[in-house]
């Protein structure tokens, strides 16, 4: 509990936190407006709406909000390395692990909050920026979120992605002991992971890759894998599938384990 209070105070007392958050929201709004402008006339598809609302640009390895969360996480650890508050009291292993855990939790919570605010802001921006010829009644209907379908799943995946990126930012920075190196590593992760995971899914014979393509606002490995392996036999992505969950969760668990082992060899964060 003390760790959480400390981390919350640390985050809120830094100007960089607020700068990062504001930058993320501004960029999100700009990208959402741009994407909404490009939507062709006719009814608004769910995929286009998700892309616009989450501001997922194919140029970037992660949605902007997820990148912002990762930056916050990496800075959180990097500041601890450069300006240790009570350096000597972080000698014990358990204390360091506790602090790491606290950082992941606080940054994760902040990331979830950031994702929610991003979606809200971007929805407003998209709605305002859509051209008059676009029929958005299907997506912006009253029961679009509650009534099943792809949209709530995609938004939930987006939020999970942001939270995961925040936590991964903390952990990658803890591996490299540097905020910038942690951010770079974090940006490299999805490129590697996505392709690897897609390959793995194809190897296991479950052709879910193309379905994941629609849900996840990521653009890397799926296209590449599909291009190489002929037409995909698509089925709906079942997020409750334990195999899929295990595949998605394994990199995160691996990262946590590596960080815990790395902390064993250290005397300070």
């Amino acid at each position: 509990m003390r760790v959480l209070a400390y981390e919350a105070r640390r985050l809120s007392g830094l100007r960089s936190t607020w700068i990062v958050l504001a930058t993320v929201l501004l960029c999100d709004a700009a990208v959402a407006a741009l994407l909404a402008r490009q939507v062709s006339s006719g009814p608004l598809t769910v995929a286009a709406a998700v892309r616009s609302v989450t501001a997922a640009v194919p140029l970037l390895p992660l949605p902007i909000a997820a990148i912002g969360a990762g930056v916050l996480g990496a800075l959180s650890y990097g500041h601890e390395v450069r300006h240790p508050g009570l350096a000597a009291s972080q000698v014990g292993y358990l204390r360091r692990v506790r602090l790491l855990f606290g950082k992941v939790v606080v940054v994760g919570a902040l990331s979830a909050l950031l994702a929610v605010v991003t979606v809200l802001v971007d929805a407003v921006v998209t709605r305002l920026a859509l051209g008059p010829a676009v029929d958005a009644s299907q997506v912006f209907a009253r029961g679009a979120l509650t009534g099943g379908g792809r949209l709530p799943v995609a938004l939930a995946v987006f939020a999970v992605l942001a939270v995961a990126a925040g936590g991964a930012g903390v952990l990658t920075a803890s591996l490299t002991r540097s905020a910038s190196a942690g951010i770079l590593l974090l940006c490299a992760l999805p490129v590697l992971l996505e392709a690897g995971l897609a390959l793995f899914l194809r190897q296991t014979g479950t052709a879910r890759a193309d379905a994941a393509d629609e849900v996840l606002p990521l653009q890397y490995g799926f296209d590449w894998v599909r291009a190489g392996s002929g037409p995909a036999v698509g089925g709906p992505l079942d997020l409750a599938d334990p195999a899929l969950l295990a595949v998605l969760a394994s990199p995160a668990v691996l990262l946590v384990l590596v960080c815990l082992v790395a902390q064993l060899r250290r005397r300070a964060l």
Partner: protein
Amino acid sequence: MIQITGLTKVYRRGRPPALLDLTLDVRPGLVTALLGPEESGKSTALRLMLDLERGQGVTLFGGRTYRGLRRPEREVGVVLPTVGGMAGHPGRTARGHLRMLAAAAGVPTGRADELLEQTRLAAVAGHRLRVFSPGMNRRLILAGALLGAPGTLVLDAPTEGLSPRNIEWFHSFLRSFAVAGGTVLVTTRTPQEAAQLADRVATLEQGRLVADQPVADFRRTRLRPEVSVRGPQMARLADLLLGQGALVRRDGAVGLAVSGIGRTEIGELAYRHGILLHELAERVVEQPAPRAVLPASSGRSGQVQLHKARTASDGSQPAPTVPGPQAAPGPHGTPGPQPVASPPAAPIPHAAQSPEPARARQAVLTAPAAPAAPVVPVAQAVQAPQAPLGTQSRVPDVLLTETQHLAPLEPLSPTQALPVMQAPPGSVPSSLPPSPLPPSLAPSLSAPLSPAQQVPQGRQAPEPGYALRAAFAGAVGTNLATATASATTSATATTTASAAGTAGTAAVGAAATGTVSTGTASGASALSGAGAHARPSDPATPAPVVGPDHRSE
């Protein structure tokens, strides 16, 4: 209570250890200073104590290691040097920083404001750390360390690079913390600060604990009050002072360092004899710590072996020539101060104290690793600092230069001025600003040139090594002439000196004059008398001097 046992750190295999077997008890209610020059292992010791580095040895804070403490920030406050001296992130305010640390330490936020008041930072609490001065940053770090109200403080160079005002604040704070029953361990580089701040001073040198003394002993053995005198007629003043029994050492071109006599007395003496003074100031001079010599069988003494030989060689010479002011030492008596604490002084092995220095020196010259080299365990060195030994072994190059500069108005080499160490404790004056005499006090006198300046510079030994050896032999001859009056030894000394150069013969001549004039005076005073009377008795002697500008040639 901190119990430090056997802290050892070797950074690289084969290298001498950065810290070797540091064992020390830090008691509550006292400020303990860990004193040592740079790279002597102070910070390493602290980091090892806090388990911030891997190494050998155990440190117990109230019976537990630092890692084993349940709430370390509630029991031990730590002030370590930080990157750039910043207390925290430069963009954070002081209050925000302390509140954050308070949250980490699990103390209420009010405690942070309280500590801001206590460290005199309340007025600037809302400002960001990037505008803080080093002193403010250091005080903020201290406030952070005090958040959990610990009973123990461990500080690494807390006053380094601070203004005098901040240093004074830190000193008074740490002293009051200790008076309130706290345990304080602080490192410092300057002996003066250690003497001011600490109740107990542990001296580290090259990773070894060479002394662990109460501050009274420390002041007595490691600090030496001196009066620095400057003026145009220092030669005359030196003669007068020597007549008064003071110990005079040359200090620069036109200065004297006088010990054994007060500042006021020097001033009065100068006034009475009409000597113009430009400066008359008290100061405190550091004495090097005695060196602990490792036993040869420890396996780590490879590097120390050299020092040991040098210790034996250098320590052997002054021993007969340095009697205490009160009494000349017996044939095996210790010339250094008598130890206060038990165990009693370790008897110096005979090689280090041989009455025939020439022989000892010969032995050392031929066999650098003398088998009879003294083995002084740390504990004994701690209890009975053999100051002449330490001085000699510590600064061989200083000895060299000083001996080269042997001048007629400097009859005592600095190593022979050691009896001053027996000045009573508490006689350490605070350093005062130089107070030049008003010119009206000094009668108008034609200021003659200092004899050192009159001396032609061409007639000295061509090589510094020779000059050193010659002067050295001269000193040896002096000792022997006064002590034993043995014709053969003085003859050998004279031959050595004449073979080496003119400086040595001059010194021997001075010694002879001194013997004649002072009669039965013993040891150092005889020697000083020799130096004192040598110059006026034979002012026409053209070049008995290795001038002060010797090395420029």
